């Protein structure tokens, strides 16, 4: 404690050791301020915020420099939602003592939370507007506004107080009671709240007392009252309904519901189901038609393929048959192979080649090969067979000679072959065939020497017959 006059530190005496000022009363005032502060602190601890404000104000009335009391007062104001007075107290506290003062931290905390500050400011503005509504007798509007404020800022106690008062005005006792009870949780000894709550409880008790003084609420669908330990809320009804009428009502409701179902809902459902079925049938029918068309197409395609297959098989068979092209190709190749292996064995190649008949079919290469083979092989074979036939004819083996000469004639017919063949027939006893062939020599090869020989033989044999 310091002297109020010179600022010197005081001892336990009633006089200042420095300036000698009478500090007895001063010390008592400071003590009083501190005791008010202690009382305020106790009340704040048990959440008697209103009582704490009273005590702390008294502490500051005694000693305006009581920093602790001022800081605590600011804190209590803040808790009640009165941020402006809270900041005012902290600012003043800071001006009294700038260093080592918790008020600095409080101010910084508030400044560092601008969102909350803005929210509280908005709530305060809305509260003031709601108060204006109430003063203009628009209590319902005020109730709506205040409910929003309380929801956004539950700590704003004046808003709850005003809301409770509005509920009381509109005789919504239960809502008023609930609001007041919630207020008491934040400020346990708020005299205004306690007063309102007392009035509300008495009104509720009156309504519950024998049910006689029950006051129906305006714009309310229910009546609420306390009966013993129970809080009863029931709708406003002129008469009670019996169980029988309830059952009848239920039955009527069921019948009406069933009728609605039958006449309104069911036909629509059936129609809808029918439409679905029709749609499905239509889809299936379309699919079936499409599938049938596909099937027809596939069958036609199969038939074409079968026909083509049989044609190809026929062609293949014709290729592979004895007179087929493939057989002909094979024969030509075989004849060529035989002739290349042994060019002296022209007869074998010629025999093979004689089986070939291209009939104008086949590739150009094969046709050319066949012609070449024909010329070379046939000529050679005919020549060899003629030579052999002549030898046999000279030996007197006319049968064998005929055989060879016939082959030679087949491979390549010429006058010599025909002559010796005719002579072989005649010498073997077949006069008629021989003479026929001699005439062929004369007719077909008139310029050859064998024609002359043939003529000479015929003339000499006619002369012998005569």
């Amino acid at each position, binding site marked *: 404690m310091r002297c*109020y006059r010179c600022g010197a530190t005081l001892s336990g005496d009633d006089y200042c050791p420095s300036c000698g000022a009478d500090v007895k*009363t*001063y010390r008592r*005032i400071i003590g009083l*301020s501190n005791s008010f502060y202690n009382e305020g602190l106790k009340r704040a601890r048990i959440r008697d915020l209103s009582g704490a404000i009273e005590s702390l104000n008294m502490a*500051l*009335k*005694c*000693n*305006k*420099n009581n920093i602790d009391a001022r800081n605590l007062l600011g804190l209590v104001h803040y808790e009640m*939602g*009165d*941020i*402006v*007075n809270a*900041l*005012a107290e902290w*600012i*003043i506290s800071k001006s009294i003592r700038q260093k080592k003062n918790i008020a600095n931290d409080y101010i910084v905390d508030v400044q560092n939370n601008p969102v909350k*500050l803005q929210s*509280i*400011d908005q709530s*305060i*503005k809305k*509260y*003031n507007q709601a*108060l204006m509504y*109430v*003063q203009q007798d628009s209590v319902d509007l005020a109730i709506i506004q205040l409910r929003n404020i309380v929801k956004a800022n539950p700590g704003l106690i*004046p808003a709850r*107080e*005003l809301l409770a*008062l509005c509920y*009381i*005005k509109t005789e919504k006792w239960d809502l008023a009671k609930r609001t007041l009870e919630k207020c008491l949780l934040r400020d346990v000894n708020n005299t*205004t709240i306690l*007063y*309102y709550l007392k*009035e509300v409880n008495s009104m509720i008790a009156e309504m519950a007392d024998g049910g006689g003084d029950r006051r129906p609420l305006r714009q309310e669908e229910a009546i609420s009252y306390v009966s013993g330990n129970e809080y009863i809320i029931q709708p406003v009804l002129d008469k009670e309904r019996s169980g029988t009428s309830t059952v009848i009502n239920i039955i009527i409701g069921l019948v009406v519901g069933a009728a609605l179902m039958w006449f309104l809902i069911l036909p629509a459902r059936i129609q809808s189901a029918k439409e679905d079925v029709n749609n499905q049938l239509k889809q299936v029918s379309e699919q079936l038609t499409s599938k049938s068309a596909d099937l027809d197409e596939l069958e036609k395609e199969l038939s074409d393929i079968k026909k083509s297959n049989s044609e190809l098989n026929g062609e293949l068979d014709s290729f592979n048959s004895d007179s087929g092209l493939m057989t002909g190709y094979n024969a030509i190749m075989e004849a060529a192979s035989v002739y290349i292996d042994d060019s002296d064995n022209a007869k074998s190649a010629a025999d093979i080649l004689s089986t070939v008949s291209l009939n104008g079919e086949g590739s150009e290469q094969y046709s050319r090969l066949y012609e070449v083979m024909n010329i070379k092989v046939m000529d050679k074979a005919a020549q060899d067979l003629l030579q052999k036939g002549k030898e046999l004819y000279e030996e007197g083996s006319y049968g064998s000679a005929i055989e060879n000469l016939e082959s030679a004639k087949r491979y390549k017919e010429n006058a010599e072959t025909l002559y010796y063949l005719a002579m072989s027939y005649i010498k073997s006893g077949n006069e008629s065939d021989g003479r026929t062939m001699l005439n062929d020599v004369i007719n077909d090869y008139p310029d050859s020497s064998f024609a002359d020989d043939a003529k000479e033989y015929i003339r000499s044999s006619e002369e012998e017959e005569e």
Partner: protein
Amino acid sequence: MIDFDEEIKKFRPLPEIDDVEDAVHNHDVSDMLDLLMAMMEDSNR
């Protein structure tokens, strides 16, 4: 019974954030000691 009109008169608008400066400026910071000092000065005169 609560008199609504009388109770409403007890409700005052809350100061907004913008009014902090005015609140500080208008704050009554006199205390008993100030009164005591004033009384003592008067008595000394």
